[in-house]
């Protein structure tokens, strides 16, 4: 890691929004945080980069940005993970424009959930302007463990938590940032997840919502991540015992695997889309351990027939939605209106359902076998159906 610092004399003050970020800490990318500066006549830029030895290039890119935009007195902090000069310029400009425009909310009604980042997904699902982030990037509560391994940190440690409203009802929400370390759970990230659940319990909110998008435990802090997932599960169970609905959405790039795959099934319900995948071990892990004959992780159709959103909804482990943000929100509203139960009877019912599944599927080797046993006609055509035809079939 290398730290670089630049300051420029600047007396203007053109920006109206602080504490905001642009970009993400991911290979070839970077995160920039904009803050007020304690000196009124200085623009201060600090860079923490994984790629040392490029001070001259940084100097050129930063000077160019400052000259072009005359940004004013403020402070930029950059967590870089090998971004090219073009990407650096782009992110600086994005953040500047966001700050200069007063960070007006966007209209996400035509957006695809998959393409939004963790914060945008929250804003797209909750009532406009209702989201208040807890422990946001500006608090800079980062993983103390990644730096030891010369890895870059992110200011929110890969998860966004906070309070919001959905159709006027108070809900708490957590959204995993798939782009930072695969959305994986470490000490800080996991404590934020447990914390928001226990806050939801204390404040008796209408629901706790998880936007899951994670490969599971962050291996660089594996023990802490595994423990954090168990602590999160314990907190989720307390919400269930208190009859506070806990709803998840698995519709992102990474799906829900490992410990987070287990967490997803501890919730009262999850919403999935066609692109969703969830299981404990991922296809690559099973292929590595058991060989390609057991599981060819490059066979995308096989992967989706084994752990994809359609398969999980046919089995009754998830509720299906199209990828459109409006449809996901509609499904979320429906689930929030349903009472959730967690008692001896629901556990016995679940036991019987899971036992029956094993009896019925003793010879099932493929999703198509499972779908045929579930009584669906033309099971081999299910992956090719449109979302609306598939949902019609599920009814």
């Amino acid at each position: 890691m290398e730290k670089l610092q630049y300051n420029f004399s600047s007396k203007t003050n053109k920006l109206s929004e602080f504490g905001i970020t642009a970009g993400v800490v991911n290979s070839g990318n970077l995160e920039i945080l904009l803050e007020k500066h304690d000196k009124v006549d200085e623009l201060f830029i600090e860079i923490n980069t994984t790629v040392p030895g490029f001070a001259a290039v940084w100097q050129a890119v930063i000077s160019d940005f400052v000259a072009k935009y005359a940004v004013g007195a403020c402070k930029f902090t950059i967590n870089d993970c090998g971004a090219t000069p073009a990407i650096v310029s782009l992110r600086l400009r994005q953040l500047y424009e966001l700050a200069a425009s007063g960070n007006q909310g966007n209209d996400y009604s035509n957006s695809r959930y998959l393409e939004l980042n963790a914060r945008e997904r929250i804003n797209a699902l909750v009532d406009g302007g209702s989201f208040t982030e807890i422990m946001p990037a500006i608090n800079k509560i980062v993983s103390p463990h990644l730096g030891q391994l010369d890895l870059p940190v992110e200011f929110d440690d890969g998860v966004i938590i906070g309070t919001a409203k959905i159709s006027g009802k108070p809900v708490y929400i957590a959204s995993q940032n798939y782009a930072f370390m695969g959305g994986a759970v470490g000490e800080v990230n996991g404590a934020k997840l447990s914390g928001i659940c226990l806050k939801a319990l204390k404040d008796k909110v209408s629901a706790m919502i998880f936007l899951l998008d994670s490969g599971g435990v962050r291996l660089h802090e594996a023990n802490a991540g595994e423990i954090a997932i168990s602590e999160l599960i314990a907190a989720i169970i307390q919400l269930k015992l208190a009859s506070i609905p806990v709803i998840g959405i698995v519709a992102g790039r990474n799906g829900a695997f490992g410990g987070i795959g287990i967490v997803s099934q501890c919730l009262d319900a999850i919403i999935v889309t066609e692109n969703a995948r969830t299981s404990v071990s991922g296809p690559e892990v099973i292929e590595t351990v058991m060989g390609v004959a057991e599981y060819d992780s490059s066979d995308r159709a096989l992967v989706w027939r084994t752990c994809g959103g359609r398969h999980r909804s046919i089995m009754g482990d998830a509720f299906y939605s199209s990828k459109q943000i409006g449809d996901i929100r509609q499904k979320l509203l429906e689930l929030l209106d349903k009472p959730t139960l967690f008692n001896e009877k629901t556990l016995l019912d679940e036991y019987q359902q899971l036992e029956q599944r094993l009896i019925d599927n003793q010879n099932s080797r493929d999703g198509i076998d499972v779908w045929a046993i579930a009584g669906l006609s033309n099971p081999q055509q299910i992956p090719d159906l449109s979302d609306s035809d598939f949902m019609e079939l599920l009814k």
Partner: protein
Amino acid sequence: MKYQDLLQQLFGNEINYSVDNNVLLGDAAFDNQQFSLCGIVDAAQLDNVMSLKLAKFILDKVNLDPKFNLLIFIDTGGQKTSRQAELLGLNRYFAHLIKVIHYARAKGARVFSLVYGSALGGAFIAAGLNAEKVYALAEAQIAVMWLEAMSRVTKIPLVRLEELSKSSAIFAPGAENFVKLGVIDKIIDPAAFLPQIISDIGGAAPSINHWRELADVRGGRTLANKIVSQVIND
């Protein structure tokens, strides 16, 4: 330690158990206390059938009398790595077991686990880590992933990981690391285990913050407890 030897040492003749498909189920007595026993033996990988069997045993006990003592014995090589296990929704089976254990605790059961062999990956999350307190024998092998595999996946040289693991409990295998991180209450001798449980049962079950508070005191996780309190009180 072989489960046969361990159980003999713990309960002598005051025990009745069976092992089928690597799942241990039984009942035993010690010092005028009755215990229900369940667990995984021979470092087996935990699969759908086994998870369900453990869950049913506990559900039946709750139905009979929710105020019971449960000991979960852990020796597992992790989750079953097979396409069919995942096809049928292994995560749902694990979650079912987890919910049943926590439900039993909520209804008044006192639940403890003892790692007497291996405790790897997702199977530890599914079973042992849902107890109110977790203990381990000195010979216990606890890991999320072995360092060689971690080095391959993270592309961090093995020597670097080995060096760092001397000063940090955060990623390296080892029961002692899980003690520092607050999740293993203590490393315990077989002879001291049941007296310890009798003493635990004499007191109240620990709070939901127990592991984080221990981790803070022991210096293994210095941020988790602070962050959780800060978020709750925001």
